[in-house]
């Protein structure tokens, strides 16, 4: 009579692994039995030592593929696993535990690399050179200043909208000037391009009149508002920029959102040319980009950020994406948001509030985004140097305040961004694996040669 075979239990018929019921210390065959029936479904040659209760692969598992047990993935194979091999932490990892996540340090790329990638990607889909330049500038600046949410991860959706006709990659904005008041019809062009034109027009007019306001309609998503405010500030002016956008914020007590999270950016030059005071805030508790990121990573939202489709507070990113965001600062923040929309969408004569089309759900529909920009010429107001000196004094006094025990630093708006920018111009832009991989894939899809 044959020696009793070691058994291994297969919990579900399609599982990749079974658990051995005796420690296997010699080579031989084991009987894989199905948990429900107790019947042997196959015999397996085992060539490794496997302790009691540990898993054995009942089929080959390819590196990177999920390993199934109880009918569900319990992790992924970190190397190719052969049938009959021991499956444990040496060749499989959880999809959740942080030790197993890609915790590699990010890859550094020169700012020029990011700029070129964006420019050549846009060129490949046939946009105007100015459009490509403006978006490349804005996306590169976002990475330089640590505003990754408005960086390369936006390139694929931007290009999808251009390709499906939602954004006209070749249109040029139409500018109508009435002294210091300038109206721009974006003609559904690339938002970054329209906004860059607007910032330049604002600066030019302010130099002539001391102050200017530019009202933009029929534009598209323009990236981060601080970019345009500092474009104005770089001309020794004070720049104020607002915009509307995709509807997402509900007033307290309302079930449905009506407004976007209109950003407000104010920038002014400090003494040295590579530092600016740069306020840039969206009027929601957080950006939609952060909610999308939380949904991807499975994190819960902090309380007070969002409500679900029925207007109830929620901490679930999924429910928040179907529902709405909350304004920052409660009712005061919401009041500011309403006032900003009165200054933007309502004033510019284009779409306002929820008439702005969603850039996510309607890929081929123009957004109709509105921007408002104000430039104040500092030379005209005070003498530019005098203003920067006075602003410098304000910042210095702020930084010199005595700190309490818990604070590691007191900061002024824009301090972090412009410090990062100097570092990154020198050392390169850190890109996560996901950002890098996606950018390179996109380039490949568009037939562009990139140096990875």
């Amino acid at each position, binding site marked *: 009579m044959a020696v009793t075979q070691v058994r291994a239990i297969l919990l579900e018929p399609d599982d990749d692994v079974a658990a051995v019921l005796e420690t296997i210390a010699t080579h031989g065959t084991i009987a894989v039995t199905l948990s429900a029936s107790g019947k042997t479904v196959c015999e397996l040659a085992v060539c490794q030592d496997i302790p009691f*209760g540990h*898993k054995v692969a009942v089929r080959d598992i390819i590196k990177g593929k999920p390993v199934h047990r109880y009918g569900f993935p319990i*992790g992924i194979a970190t190397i190719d696993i052969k049938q009959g091999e021991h499956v444990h932490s040496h060749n499989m990892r959880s999809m*959740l535990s942080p030790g197993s996540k890609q915790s590699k340090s990010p890859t550094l790329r020169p700012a020029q690399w990011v700029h070129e990638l964006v420019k050549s990607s846009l060129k490949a889909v046939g946009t105007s050179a100015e459009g490509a330049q403006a978006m490349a500038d804005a996306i590169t600046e976002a990475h330089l200043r640590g505003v990754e949410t408005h960086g390369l991860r936006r390139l694929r959706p931007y290009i999808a909208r251009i390709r499906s006709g939602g954004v006209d990659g070749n249109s040029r904005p139409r500018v109508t000037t009435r002294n210091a008041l300038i109206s721009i019809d974006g003609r559904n062009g690339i938002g970054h391009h329209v906004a860059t034109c607007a910032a330049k027009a604002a600066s030019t007019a302010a130099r002539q009149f001391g102050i200017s306001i530019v009202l933009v309609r029929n534009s598209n998503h323009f990236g981060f508002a601080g970019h345009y405010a500092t474009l104005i500030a770089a001309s020794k002016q004070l720049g104020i920029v607002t915009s509307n956008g995709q509807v997402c914020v509900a007033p307290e007590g309302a079930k449905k959102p009506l407004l976007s999270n209109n950003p407000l950016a104010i920038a002014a030059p400090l003494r040295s040319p590579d530092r600016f005071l740069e306020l840039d805030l969206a009027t929601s508790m957080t950006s939609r980009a952060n909610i999308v990121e939380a949904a991807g990573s499975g994190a*819960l939202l902090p309380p007070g950020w969002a409500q679900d489709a029925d207007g109830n507070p929620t901490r679930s990113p999924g429910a928040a994406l179907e529902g709405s965001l909350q304004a920052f600062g409660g009712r005061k923040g919401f009041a500011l948001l309403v006032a900003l929309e009165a200054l933007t969408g309502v004033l510019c004569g284009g779409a306002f509030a929820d008439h702005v089309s969603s850039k996510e759900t309607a890929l081929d529909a123009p957004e109709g985004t509105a921007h408002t920009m104000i430039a104040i010429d500092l030379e005209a107001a005070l003498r530019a140097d005098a203003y920067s000196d006075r602003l410098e004094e304000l910042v210095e006094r702020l930084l010199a305040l005595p700190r309490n025990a818990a604070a590691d630093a007191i900061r002024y708006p824009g301090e972090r961004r412009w410090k990062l920018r100097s570092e990154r111009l020198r050392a390169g832009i850190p890109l996560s694996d996901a950002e890098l991989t996606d950018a390179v894939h996109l380039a490949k899809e568009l037939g562009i040669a990139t140096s990875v």
Partner: protein
Amino acid sequence: MALAIGGLTGYPRENGRKGVRNLVAVLAAADNVNPLARHLAARNPGVVCLPASYGRGQMGRDFEVSLRAMAGLAAHPNIASCLVVSFEPESSERVAKLARQLGRQVATLSFLETGGLLESLHKGNEILCAMQQAASLVQRVPLAVSELTIGLECGGSDTTSGLFGNPALGAFTDWIVDHGGTAVFSEPVECLGGEDLLRKRAVSPEAAERLVSTVRLYDELAREQGIDLAGTNPTPDNLAGGLTSIEEKSLGALAKTGSRTIMGVLGYADAAPAPGVWMMDAPAAAVENVTALAAGGAQCVCFVTGTGNPTGHPISPTIKISANPRTVERMSAHLDVDLSDMLRGHMNVVQGADAIRAAVVKVIGGEATAAERLDYLETNISRIGPSV
């Protein structure tokens, strides 16, 4: 062995539910009357004492949860009559009011109003005597599986739990649900990594969302205390036992919930509003956990253990199941169902579920569980906030 599905009986209660025990209980509405509750239970053999761990200085949702749990215990179908004692009359009246909302009448007794311990003992004895007499007159009536709520729990888990104990309990759970019964599992913290399963089995996208966010909330709570659950699980013990990932550990725990649709999430100590499988939002520690399941109205709790866990709840008979031969050998007095033959290959999952069902049928019929025989019974309501 052929098992009769029919033949189950239970004690009818005025709210239409049926109990599998016919207990008389004295419940303390706050810790300051625990001595009174204990004295009363000692003077009236057979009366179950349900002391309070706190009760003074509680506030907000914590207070509300405690009250609901106390009312759930007082109104439990396994209890024929309950006397709620408190210091000032308002405290016991609060519990009584909530118990009435659950369809049960309870008696109240205030230490202050009655005039101290001796007077309270005197009056309480009279009440409990009358309650015991009335209880003795309640006759068992037929009980359908659809009238049962079973609590599902695992603790002291090891390799045999995920391989045998929990899958066998899962097969029994399927049987309960297929016959119109209700099964409640809890310990959302032990479902972390099992979100795919919860989503797939949830009755609706909304239920899926609730289930997953309830599980994640515990991850968040742990993080706030600086603990990364996914990073610290599986534990070194688990790893030595062959568990590689937290997903695997959670799926092993979830195996006890069977394979049927999950209806949604119940609040701590809340009763299931409809039959089927439910997840209760209650912490994993065994005593608090069985207390929450009992307060939610589970007539009995099926508890799978690997290395052994003696805990039983005083009003919801707790049936101990193990497939670990060593535990079966060393701690047999604490066990009700021996599944060690599953490891030896002499018993499959279906037969394991049959063994559990046979034990449950006996316990429903009145047979004492190991924990009841040993009087290894404890109750404790979870706190979710500090006292002031």
